[in-house]
Every structure is written in structure tokens, then in C-alpha cells.
């Protein structure tokens, strides 16, 4: 309530400041003196001097006022009744906090109900104090800005410097995100490696986090079956499907197809890339997996499981075809026409030109495309969640069920867990490994493409 009133007040003050400064600047113009910047820049300048100090102080106040409220509450006589144990105290206090903002919420502790009233009162008291301090800051800022207002004042330059700062901050958000990802993953992984040794994790072959209790839990967190499942499904099976189909599609589209055919077929291949992965997963679970299971039964396999690595890998390969195809397309198109023409002039057929001249010349780009496709495949989650299984198997049989890193991350983190248990922490460790591997693949692939492009320009 107070916050909304405060924000509206600040907005109104900013508006008044804008009109005032602009009017004063216009006076300079009409007096014949002229101004360095157009009047509305002066308006913005004063408005920012009013609004920004107030908002900054208000944000800082929002962050520190809960501590003031907490101090005020614990000094009350009722607070003597708070339980001594930390855990109970925290629960009671957080419940009282919740009740202070929403009186109709359910509550366990009667003491929390009693505390809710004083908490709400203290909160509004400190909110008013904060709002007043911010308003004083607004007026001070406004006075300072108004005193600087004269004809030669470079208002526009100041404003534009501010705009550049905002642009820079927006760009830094990307670094902040990357940094946030790395920091949170590394922190949680470090916590995990305090409980389970890295060697056990990276080289162990037994994965059953559900039975991990007691001292020797390191034995249950061997991640090799997960890595194997990820590689088998995402790299081996999916690439066996995607590389031939993608590469030959790209060759046909660039070399053999007419313009009209290319104009229709290329968007349709892009649609393959645009279908959400959950749809592919459902397609795999509904149609492909039973088909593979019946196939396995007819081949004589006893008790074939519905969740097979082949089903997941097949559908994943289909999903990846457009990635391979478009990268191969770009690489083949980047090869200079003179090379193909020279080969054709010497009497080679079109297929011989492609096989012996174009593909070897475009090979770096194609390999980079395959690496990007692999990186996409090993990070894929929904298809494996819906079509592959949770059984951490180390087998060579594609008709068996296998699990992957991404499936386990989902499995370990859904459901109510304590955030500190080794189970949830292992998910972050798996996530860190996934992140590093895909990052390395992407960096190498992009560097290969860049060097390859330079070679032909």
C-alpha cells in the first residue's frame, strides 16, 4: 500500500520536474538567448535528478528494513516466548511474517498469530520512514538539478551519457547470467564433492542415489552409466540417423533441387526444428517405442522393455536432422563456385564433384555442424524423459533401456527434497559436467567455422 503510494508520488514529482525544467528552458529560447540542448532534454535531466536518488534510496531501504523490523520485534515482551531452537524459531517467525501480509493464511502456531499484528505495524512504520527519507532525497536532487539549469548547460550530453550506461548494463546482463550459471553450479558441486569424492563420481559404475544412506554413499554415485547412456543415445544412435539424412538432404537441396523445390522444402525442414521437444517425446513414447518393442519381441528378445535406447535415439536423430542440414547447407554454399566449376570442366559428373571436391572443401564446416548437433543432442531432456528409462544400464544392446545425464537431473530434482542432500547436489554436479561439455563443443565448433570462413574469403 505504502509502496504503491510512494511510487505514484515519485512518478508525479518526476512529471512535475519535467514540465518545470522544460518551461524554464523554453523561456531561454523565447528570450532570444537560445539553449545548448533542446528544452525537453532539460526536462528529462531534472526529472532524472528527482526520480533516481529517490528510487535508489527506496531500493536500499527495502533490502535493509526487514532487519529493523526483526530487531523491533525481538525487543518486545512477547518475543520472550519464542522457542529456543533455531529451526522452530525460524519457522514460527516466517509464518508470522506470512500472516502479517495475508491474515487469512493457515497457521500452526498461535504465537505466530499474536506476532503478526506487531510485525505489520512495525513494517508500515519503517516503510513510512523509508518513504520520507526517499522523498527528501528527491527534493534535494531536484533542487540541485534546478540550480544547474542555465542556457549553456549541456543537458543532452548528460542524458546521452546516462543512456549509454543503461546500454552497457543491459549488455553486462549476459556476462552476469553466464557468471551466475557457473557460480551456482560450481558452488553446489563443491558442496556435493565434500560428501562424495570426485573420483567415485567420475569413475564409478553403480548409480542408485535412492539407496544412498550412510557413510559409504560414494559407491552409489558412479556416473559412468549415465555418461555412457548419454553418448550411446545422443552421439551414436542419433548421429547415425541424423548425419546421413541431414548431409544428403543438404547436398540435394544445394546441388540438385530447382529454386522452386528449394523454396518449399527448406521451410519444411525448418519446421522439423521448430516442433517442441515434448511433442517429439510423446511421439516417441506413443508410436516409436511400442513399435521397437514389438520389433524386439519378433527378433526373439525375451521381455523387451518399452523404454529402449533405440526409440529415444531414433527420435532424437530426427529432431537433429535440420541442424546438420542447415550447417552443411551453409558450408557447401560457402565453397567458391570456381572449385566446382573447375571440376565439372574437367569432365567429372556432379556426384563425383560433390564427393571429391565440395565435401572435402566444406568438411570443416560440416564437422562443426555435427559438433553443434551433438551438443544439442546431449543436452536434450524431454525426449529421453518420455522415451528412455531410469535404469542406469551399461550395455551395448540398443533395445535395452538406458538413462542419460539430463534424465537423472530431472529425476533427482523433482519432488520434495531437502536442498542439501547428496541427491539434489549430485544433480548440480551432473549439470556442471553437461555445461562444460556443451560449452567446449560449442567453442571448438565456432572456432572451426570462423577459421574455415577466413580461409575462403
Amino acid at each position, binding site marked *: 500500500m505504502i509502496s504503491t503510494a510512494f511510487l505514484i508520488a515519485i512518478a508525479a514529482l518526476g512529471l512535475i520536474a519535467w514540465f518545470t525544467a522544460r518551461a524554464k528552458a523554453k523561456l531561454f529560447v523565447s528570450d532570444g538567448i537560445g539553449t545548448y540542448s533542446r528544452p525537453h532534454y532539460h526536462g528529462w535531466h531534472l526529472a532524472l535528478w528527482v526520480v533516481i536518488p529517490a528510487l535508489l534510496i527506496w531500493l536500499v531501504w527495502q533490502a535493509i528494513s526487514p532487519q529493523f523490523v526483526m530487531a523491533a520485534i525481538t525487543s518486545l515482551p512477547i518475543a520472550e516466548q519464542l522457542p529456543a531452537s533455531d529451526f522452530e524459531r525460524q519457522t514460527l517467525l516466517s509464518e508470522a511474517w506470512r500472516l502479517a501480509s495475508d491474515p487469512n493464511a493457515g497457521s500452526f502456531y498461535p504465537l505466530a498469530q499474536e506476532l503478526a499484528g506487531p510485525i505489520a505495524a512495525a513494517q508500515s512504520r519503517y516503510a513510512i520512514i523509508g518513504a520520507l527519507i526517499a522523498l527528501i532525497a528527491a527534493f534535494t536532487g531536484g533542487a540541485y538539478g534546478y540550480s544547474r539549469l542555465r542556457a549553456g548547460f549541456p543537458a*543532452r550530453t548528460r542524458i*546521452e551519457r546516462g543512456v*549509454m550506461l*543503461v*546500454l*552497457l548494463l543491459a*549488455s553486462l546482463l*549476459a556476462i552476469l*547470467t*553466464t557468471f*551466475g*550459471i557457473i557460480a*551456482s*553450479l560450481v558452488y553446489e558441486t563443491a558442496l556435493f564433492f565434500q560428501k562424495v569424492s570426485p573420483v567415485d563420481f567420475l569413475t564409478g559404475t553403480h548409480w542408485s542415489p535412492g539407496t544412498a544412506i550412510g557413510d559409504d554413499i560414494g559407491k552409489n554415485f558412479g556416473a559412468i552409466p549415465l555418461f555412457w547412456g548419454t553418448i550411446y543415445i545422443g552421439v551414436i544412435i542419433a548421429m547415425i540417423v541424423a548425419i546421413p*539424412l*541431414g*548431409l*544428403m*538432404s543438404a*547436398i*540435394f*537441396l544445394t*546441388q540438385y533441387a530447382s529454386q522452386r523445390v528449394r523454396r518449399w*522444402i527448406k521451410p*519444411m*525442414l525448418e*519446421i522439423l526444428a*521448430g*516442433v*517442441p521437444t515434448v*511433442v*517429439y517425446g*510423446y*511421439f516417441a*513414447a*506413443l508410436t516409436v517405442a511400442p513399435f521397437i518393442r514389438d520389433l524386439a519381441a519378433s527378433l526373439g528378445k525375451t521381455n523387451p522393455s518399452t523404454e529402449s535406447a533405440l526409440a529415444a535415439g531414433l527420435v532424437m536423430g530426427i529432431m537433429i536432422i535440420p541442424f546438420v*542440414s542447415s550447417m552443411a547447407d551453409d558450408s557447401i554454399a560457402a565453397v567458391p563456385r570456381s572449385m566446382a566449376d573447375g571440376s565439372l570442366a574437367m569432365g567429372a*559428373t*556432379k*556426384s*563425383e564433384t560433390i*564427393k571429391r571436391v565440395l565435401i572435402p572443401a566444406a568438411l570443416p564446416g560440416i564437422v562443426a555442424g555435427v559438433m553443434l548437433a551433438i*551438443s*544439442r543432442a*546431449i*543436452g536434450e*531432456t*524431454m525426449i529421453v*524423459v*518420455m522415451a528412455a528409462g531410469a535404469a542406469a544400464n551399461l550395455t551395448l544392446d540398443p533395445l535395452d533401456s538406458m538413462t542419460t545425464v*539430463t534424465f537423472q*537431473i*530431472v529425476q533427482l*530434482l*523433482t519432488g520434495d527434497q531437502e*536442498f542439501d542432500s547428496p541427491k539434489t547436489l549430485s544433480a548440480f554436479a551432473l*549439470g556442471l559436467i553437461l555445461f562444460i561439455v*556443451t*560449452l567446449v563443443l*560449442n567453442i571448438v565448433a565456432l572456432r572451426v567455422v570462423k577459421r574455415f570462413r577466413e580461409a575462403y574469403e
Partner: protein
Amino acid sequence: MNRDWNSPVMTRQLARRHAAERRFRFFGLAAIVLSLSFLFLLLFIMLKNGLSGLDWSFLTGSDSTDPATAGVWGAVKGSLLMMLVTLALSFPMGVLAAVYLEEFAPRNRWIDLVEVSINNLAAVPSIIFGLLGLAVFINTMQLPRSSPLVGGLTLALMTMPVIVISGRNAIKAVPPSIRDAALAVGASPVQTVFQHVVPLAMPGIMTGTIIGMARALGETAPLLMIGMRAFVATPPDSITAPASVLPMQIFLWSDEINAGFVQNTSAAIIVLLVFLLTMNGLAIYLRNKFEVSW
């Protein structure tokens, strides 16, 4: 050269090479036909299973445990709210970052680091963003689980690099003569960019944004991480209320044992594909309509 092109040896060799050429061409065509037939098979199966379930009560009803009365409206509303949050956060950040990197940034190692960061973030698996959302938004900032707010924040982080990359390409496509003309008339660099370059690059930026949004609409994995796996019976009424989204609803229904849900899942998939087709079609239409060849 004294080679007899009509000798039987040479004729056989030529015939072999021409046959190889025909085979190769056939394999190329077969590859495309096979790939597209997978796509058509998928669409056909979804339509066959779900088309009969698409009626008005399905489109306006909420989720329920009984397959006959379950509907998608709750999930659709959750998706719309989440898309709004994602758009509101990622579009300004993405466009401003693209403008800075393309127009104002100096060429030094720090800016190279920013560019590398953005290119890498665009290729990070989406589940990693889910882990980030779980660790930062839910645990550190204590935002409500399974709400469109947290989902939108997570997906905004994922969509921003896409908008930055397509925005940079759009701004790069505006010819230097526009900038030079504005500067020559006396505009400052900031005025040139915001009043001349960005309006001209806007169609390209919009296309990239719509494509990024379409990608975010179909994402499920990061939302699994932030707790959207629960059964939500009523549509969300604010961005902090627990909600579900359309792809998540498809995932939850696909897990159901009751075979009656097959129709619902397929119908929901049809709804999702229609949304995505519309968005991509809109992006292509915008690109074709406003594309100016300089």
C-alpha cells in the same frame, strides 16, 4: 589424347559413372523424403488421435483427473502470462544490448568476452537455465515456485541471447549511409541510433523476437526444474499464482495411465502446434512484408 571414347571399355566406365550419379541423386532425394515423411507421420498421428477431442469445452476447461472433462485453458492462460513476463524482460534487455554491442561498444577484450558469452548462452542446453532458476530465483530470492513469474524470468534469460543475436544482424543490415546522413545533419550518435537506425532495423528485430518467443513457448525442461510439475486445477489469476503451461500439461497428461488421456494429449499438442505455426508464420510474414533490400 588418343583415347577412344567409343570403345567398349570406355562406354562401360561412363555408364558406371552415370549410374553412380543417378544413385547419388536418388539417395539425396530419398533422404529428404524420409526426413519429411517422419514429420508427416508425427503430424498425422497427432491429428488422428486428437482431432476428435478438440471441442469448445476442451479449449475452455481446466485440468482435471477425469479425461472427459479435462481442458487446456488453465495451461494456455499460464503460458500467456509467462510469455508476457518473458517478453517484458527479454525484449528491452536484448534490444538494448544488441544496440550497444553493434553501435557503441569499443573493440577490446572485455567486449569480446561479452560477445563470446552471448554466443555461448544461445547454445547452452535449456535444462541448465532451469538449474540456474532453481538455485537463484527459488532458493536465494525465495520467489514462489511454479509461478509464471519465475518461469518467465528463467525463460527470459534463455531468450535474451537469441534476441541479441538476431538484433545485431538486423542492425548490421542497415547501411552506413543512413547513419552518415543523420550525423551530417547534426544528430548526435545516440539520436542517430535511436531515431534512425533502430526504427529501420525493427522488422528484423521483431522477427527474431517472435522466433525466440516461439522457442520459449515450447520449452519444458527448465520449467520442470522450477517445480511446474504439479497438478493445477484452476487457471492462474496473477503472475505469482501457481500455474502450468501448455507443454508441461502435455507432459503431465502423457504420464497418465488412463488411456482416455491419449486423446487429450494429442489435442493439446495440436493446440500447441497451431500456436507455434501462427507465430512462425507471423514472423515470416513480417520479414517478407517489411524486408527492404538496400
